[in-house]
Structure formats: C-alpha cells, structure tokens
C-alpha cells in the first residue's frame, strides 16, 4: 500500500495499490522521461507520487501552473523522444483542449499518455463531466481500465499504442478506479537509456492537411481495437441478452448478473477501449443477441456510438433492441446519465430487461426511525481553525458596514464552500478556475451603465496562478473596478496540499524561487495589500477601506492552512472560561457556536454554555478575539497576534 508499494522491485508480486498508485507504477515501468499535472481530484496522487520518485528513477516531474501548460510540456518531451505522461481531471481537459486538439493533429514522437480522472457523482468536483466526448473530439483513442490492476497494465499498453500510431492516447479512469485499491501485480522497472533530441528535419506542425492523416491513424486504431487485450467477454456463447460496459461499471455488472442468477443467459462484453470501438467484436456479439444493455458512467458515450454502428448494420442486427440511458432503463435515483453506477442500479436495470424480480434490500430505516427519528446530514465545512472562515467573516462584516449590497464572486478550491453556511453563504457565482476574476472584470465596468454595487472576487492562491492572472491583466488594461481577495493559505489545500509557484518548492521537493501573489500584482501596477485574516477586526477595516475607492485592487489574506499549521508545533490550549460565558443570557446568540460555527466551538448542553472540543480545535484563537464576553481563553504556548 501507499508510496512504499511503488518501490517494490519483485516482478510478479501482488501488492495493494490504489488506481492512482497503479498508474504511477505503470508509468515508471514504461520508462517515462517526463510527467506533468495540475492537481485535481480524483487523480492528484499520481503526480504527487511521481514527483517523489522522479529522482530515484531519473525522470522529470512537475506540478505545472495549469493543465494547458502541463500538456504542452509533456508534448514537447514526446517530440524530443521521451515517453511522457500528463494527468488531469475533466475540467483540466477543458483548459487544455485547445492544445490537445492541435497536438493530436501535428502528431507526436515518443508515447504521450493523457490520464483523465472523471468524477461521476462529483465526489470532489463542482460538476460531473464525461471527458470522453472531448477526447473523441481531439481524435484520441480512449482506454478504460476497470480496476487498479488494469490501470497499471493499461498504462504500459497505452504508451505502446501511442508510439505505434503517433497520437496522444487517453487513459480514462473514474473515481472508483483512481481511489479504489486492489491487488496489482508489479512488473520489472527497466533501466532506461534516454537521449532526448529533436532531429534537424523533424517537424510537429498543426496544419489542416494533417486532418486526413489524423483520421487514417484513428482508422488504424479501429482495426487494432478488436485485438485490444483488455476487451473481455464473460457469459454463454450466443447470449440473448448482451451487457456492453466499460470501466468500474463492469465490476457492478458482473456482481449484478450473479446476484440475479442470470450467469447462464446474460453475456457481458467489457470494452477496454471505448473509442474507436472494436467493431467486429461488437457486431459479432450483437448479431446473436436480442437485447443489448449499456452500463457506463456518466453519459451514454458507448451507447450512442454503438447505436450509430448498429444503424450502419441494421439489416444484420434486426430485431435487436437497445436498453440503457436512452431508453430510461439504466438510471440512478436522479435519472439516466446522472451520478455513479452501483450494483443495485445495474441489478434493477437487468431485472427489468430480463423480466425477473428484484428490489434492493430496504435497509433498517423504518426500525431505526422509531428510536432515532432523524439522522442529521453532514454538510461540508471549513476545518476548525481554517483561515478562510475568518476571511469570509471579515468580508461579510465589511460588506455589511459598506451597505451597498456588494456582490461576491467565487472560484474553485476549498473556499468554494463559501457558497454554503460555513462561508456565511457569501459567494454568488462559482464556475471554473479563475472565472470569478474574469466576471469581476465585467461587473467592474458597469458603473457607467447604472451598476452601483461594489464587486469582490475571492480566489485561492493556487487558482490565482492557474487562471486568474490573465483576468487581472485584462482588468488593469480595461480599467475595471473591483477588489480581488486572494485567500493565500500557502498551499493547494483542496487536493491534498500540493506546492504552487508561491511556495518556493516544486513537485520533486526542490527549493525554487518564490513568486508571491503581491509581486505579481505589483508587477502589473495594481495596488496590493497583504494582511493576516486571523486579525478579523483589522481585515474587516481594510476590506471596507478598499471598497471605498475606484480601480482594480488586490488584497492578499495570508495565513497557512490550519491542517498544515497544526502539524508538529506545540500549540497553546484554547478553552472557554465558563465562569465568564453567560450562555443564552448573553445576547450574542451563541456567536462562537451558531454564527461563526467553527466545528470546535460546540455547546455544553448540560451547563448551557459554550465549550471547545479540544480534539477538534486547531488552536487558531480567532474565536478568542470574537467572543463579546472575552470568555474564550488561551493557556500556554505562543499567543497569536
């Protein structure tokens, strides 16, 4: 497990790995020379691991500033003859798409594998995107592993395929592969002798006449797809009902067929390559089937393409019937094409198609209700001591003082939770990386047309470097008026604390030059202030002051992520002096607990007074300064401020 399993050099041994570790291991076994990524769940741990191992296996690894730059770097290394891997989430593919579509047209030299971690159900994403549509648009073959074991093996095979056809290849994983763990059989880590160079006569140029060559390459893959070793069929020959599936959904389909006792009549065709389709394999199975059932995540990508293929062979396949998202048979609780698959959804669909009875176990909800009428939901919240909670409270207070209904534009990171209760419902827009700053540019130009509300954009430090800088240049150039608050917690917190250009450290752990946010803003000629958000009163005054003048302004609120700050150091104890807290007679309406709502500020029901959960508290001491009675005290350690 973990990092250590990546180092096992005993070919043939079975070790526990996550899908992400398996991809990293596969890349190392494939002898990569270059790896790049911008952190995004569910794939963030791939480059995290590769960065730690780059020195040992003599390849280069970087956290790039964004996915477009990451892809361009990896493509260049491929042009120079190095096997390269580039890793991102679907939103990253959106960012990189312009370059991706061109690189696939110009062609490549050494294998270039794009790992995309789709997040069905959006466990750690703002949206739920099926990246396969974009990968198809970019004329890339799409490979889909079903398990961590396949993820490792397919990574190796993806490099071979990419090199053979000179196209970048997509390895499309889903959260239930990336974040799943399973037995992975490790192979040999071969020593690689690399001499990167670009020949004098080599050219990698995007030009429209290469479109025909690009299509020819895809046709070549189409012919190879039937022999792709990761396609699998399980079930009786000439099955009347054929399940067509890929990725983690295959595992659910297998379990559902077994649960329903339909092993004797339902066949499962698992596609290891979902674009281009293995047409002969599909047509061969479809010819003898009466019903085809599609099980996939998230949208009906395979379903649409297979139905398209079937339409071309209508006479051979008649009277075949299709069941899936389009027919409404394969649907989770929110409807077809929305959310993850699981064994029950597949079992319900197959039961309906095959005419057998099945309903998922009801659970013990009814029995529990008699004793516990309600099991409260657990909303996401800023961690105890999170500087963002203090920052949002200060901005909220400053806007209240200002009284002109200031508009707050959000962005992508931990602080996206500012749309909810933990950020006092402050954010009014959330879209893509850096988009709040671009939108602030627009609103900040509307004063002449009657818009008289102050505009505040809130963006994190890593997001600032990723995509906010062009918007800031635009703001200065076009004289837009708004306040950009950069919530600088000195890390990429949301995805697991990866380094960024403001930190002075890179993916391989080297010390590098720091590019603080304020230097970037100063370089653009934009007035910039830096403040500690733990000083809530000072921050509130500063935000209020900055809202009173015209022009583009930047405020950096800098304080390390509480989870990092909590590590290692001896911190003081923060506690409520219950002699001083007067509970509900205070008139503060349980401020620390119900309003500021830090998860460590709980209520002592017995004494009807505030109390601090010292197991949860990260000792930030912000509540000490906010308690109107001064009842929260600090003991020992160094006091802040």
């Amino acid at each position: 497990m973990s990092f250590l399993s990546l180092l096992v050099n005993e070919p043939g041994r079975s070790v526990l790995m996550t899908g992400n570790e398996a991809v990293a291991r596969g890349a190392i076994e494939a002898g990569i020379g270059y790896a790049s990524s911008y952190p995004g769940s569910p794939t963030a741990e791939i480059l995290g691991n590769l960065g730690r191992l780059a020195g040992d296996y003599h390849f280069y690894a970087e956290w790039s500033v964004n996915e477009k730059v990451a892809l361009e770097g990896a493509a260049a290394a491929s042009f120079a003859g190095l096997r390269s891997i580039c890793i991102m989430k679907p939103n990253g593919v959106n960012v990189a798409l312009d370059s991706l579509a061109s690189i696939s047209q110009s062609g490549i030299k050494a294998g270039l594998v794009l790992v995309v971690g789709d997040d069905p159900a959006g466990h750690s994403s703002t949206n739920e995107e099926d990246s396969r549509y974009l990968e198809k648009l970019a004329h890339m073959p799409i490979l889909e592993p079903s398990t961590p074991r396949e993820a490792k093996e397919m990574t190796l095979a993806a490099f071979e395929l990419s090199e053979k056809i000179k196209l970048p290849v997509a390895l499309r994983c889903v959260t239930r592969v990336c974040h799943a763990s399973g037995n992975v059989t490790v192979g040999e880590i071969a020593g690689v002798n690399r001499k990167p160079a670009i020949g004098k006569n080599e050219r990698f140029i995007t030009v429209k006449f290469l479109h025909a060559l690009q299509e020819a390459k895809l046709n070549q893959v189409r012919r190879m797809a039937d022999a792709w070793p990761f396609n699998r069929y399980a079930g009786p020959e000439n099955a009347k009902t054929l399940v067509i599936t890929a990725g983690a959904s295959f595992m659910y389909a297998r379990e559902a067929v077994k649960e329903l006792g339909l092993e004797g009549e339902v066949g499962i065709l698992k596609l290891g390559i979902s674009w281009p389709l293995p047409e002969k394999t599909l047509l061969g199975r479809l010819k003898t089937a009466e019903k085809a059932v599609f099980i996939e995540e998230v949208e009906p990508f395979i379903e649409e393409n297979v139905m398209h293929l079937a339409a071309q062979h209508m006479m051979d396949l008649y009277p075949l019937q299709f069941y899936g998202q389009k027919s409404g048979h394969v649907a989770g609780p929110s409807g077809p094409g929305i959310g993850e698959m699981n064994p029950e959804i597949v079992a319900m669909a197959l039961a309906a198609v095959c005419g057998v009875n099945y309903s998922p176990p009801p659970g013990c909800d009814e029995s529990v209700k008699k004793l516990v009428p309600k099991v409260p939901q657990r909303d996401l919240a800023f961690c105890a001591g999170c500087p963002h909670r203090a920052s949002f409270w200060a901005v909220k207070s400053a806007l209240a003082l200002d009284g002109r209904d200031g508009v707050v534009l959000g962005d992508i990171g931990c602080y996206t939770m500012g749309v909810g209760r933990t950020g006092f419902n402050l954010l009014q827009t959330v879209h893509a990386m850096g988009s709040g700053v671009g939108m602030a540019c627009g609103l900040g130009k509307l004063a002449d047309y009657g818009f008289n509300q102050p505009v505040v954009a809130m963006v994190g430090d890593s997001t600032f470097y990723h995509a906010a800088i062009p918007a800031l240049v635009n703001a200065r150039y076009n004289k837009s008026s708004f306040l950009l608050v950069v919530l600088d917690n000195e890390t990429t917190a949301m995805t697991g604390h990866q380094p960024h250009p403001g930190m002075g450290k890179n993916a391989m752990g080297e010390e590098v030059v720091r590019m603080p946010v304020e230097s970037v803003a100063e370089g653009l000629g934009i007035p910039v202030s830096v403040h500690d958000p733990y000083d809530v009163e000072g921050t509130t005054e500063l935000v209020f002051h900055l809202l009173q003048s015209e022009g583009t302004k930047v405020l950096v609120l800098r304080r390390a992520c509480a989870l990092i700050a909590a590590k290692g150091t001896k911190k003081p104890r923060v506690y409520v002096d219950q002699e001083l807290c007067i509970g509900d007679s205070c008139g503060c309406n349980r401020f620390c607990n119900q309003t500021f709502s830090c998860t460590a500020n709980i209520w002592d029901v017995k004494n009807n007074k505030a109390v601090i959960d010292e197991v949860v508290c990260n000792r930030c001491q912000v509540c000490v300064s906010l308690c109107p009675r001064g009842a929260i005290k600090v003991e020992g350690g160094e006091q802040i401020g």
Partner: protein
Amino acid sequence: MAEPSVHNIIVTGVGGQGNVLASQIIATAAVNSGYFVSVGETFGASQRGGSVMSHIRISREEAYGPLIPRGKATMIVGFEPLETLRTLIPYGNKETGVIMNLRSNYPLSVLVGEDTYPEIEKIKEAIAANSRFLVALEATELAVAAGVPVGTNMVMTGAFAGAGVLPIPPETYEGVIAGLFGGELLELNLAAFRAGLKAIAADQDLAGQRR
C-alpha cells in the same frame, strides 16, 4: 463456521479521523495474507467534515467491485456514532457486526441549532436492534490515554483486528503498521493499536457472539 465467500467491511466516519489509513491497513494485512482485496473509498470530503466511507471487500476467490451492495455489509467499523448508524441503515442486515467509537462529532446543522444530535443511548439501541452485535468503545479516550490524541483510527483498527472477523493474527496488522511509521511514532501507534485489541478482548458481549 466456514469463511464467507466475501467479507464486506465498511469503515465509516468523518473527514479527518484517519478512516482511509485504517482501511488501507486492514486491506494490506489481507493482501499480505493472500486474499483478493478491493477497496472503494470516497475521500473527496476528507478533512472537510463530510461523511467518509471505505468499502473493503476481501475474498479468497476473486476480486470484487469497489462498492458493497446495499444490505450486504458483514462488518461496520464506525469511528463516530451518527456515521455508524447512517451507514448501517442502507448497508447493514441482522447478521452485520458493528464496532463503534462513542465519541461524537457534531454536524454543522447541529452546531447552528437546526438539528439535534440523537441521544447516544438511542443510537446504540437502534444499532443493536438491527445487527448481530454492537461493541461500543471509547476509542478516542483510549487513544488519548495511549499518548496519541489523533490515534482513534489505530485503536479502531486494533479493535477490528481483535474481533476475529478475519483469520488474520494481530501481528500481521502490526507488521503493516511497522512499514508505515518509524521511531517514536511507531511505538505510539502500536500502543494505540494494542489498546484497541485489549478493549475488544475484554468485551463480554462480543465473546458470546463470536462465530
């Protein structure tokens, strides 16, 4: 009793409690004992106070998918009472064994006064009525006593190891833990693990229920 064809174990709790590490230790101990293991984890909400669940599927026969079907958990290891109950409702059945930490972690809606946290005794009663056995322990307090306030996960791992659900000796788990930590940190984590082992060994209810 013959070993079931698949053990479906759910480790459940709140982000930041170390559930993922606990599930990885259990899973690695099983892989090192020659099992096929699949783990499905949702850690997008980790560290941010959301519900976090790991599904661990352990079989001598084949690799299962990463999600346990509804009603099919054989064992639930709950790091927090409310999360234990939340998990039992869809995934448990009358044959499910439950080991639960008694330390509550309050959801935001409870903090702000919109919801009330159910009484612990009612939670225990509801779980006991809908499972094969419930062992409830003060794992967080045991971790604090062992000198590792953040070692709840190790205490719970120890309690699971000692419950005899899997035919894997505690030494195998300890070997996995030894590969993760060094020096003083290893000693502290092993102390927490052993505190869990000891607590479960002392539990009379479980002794009667063991199969």
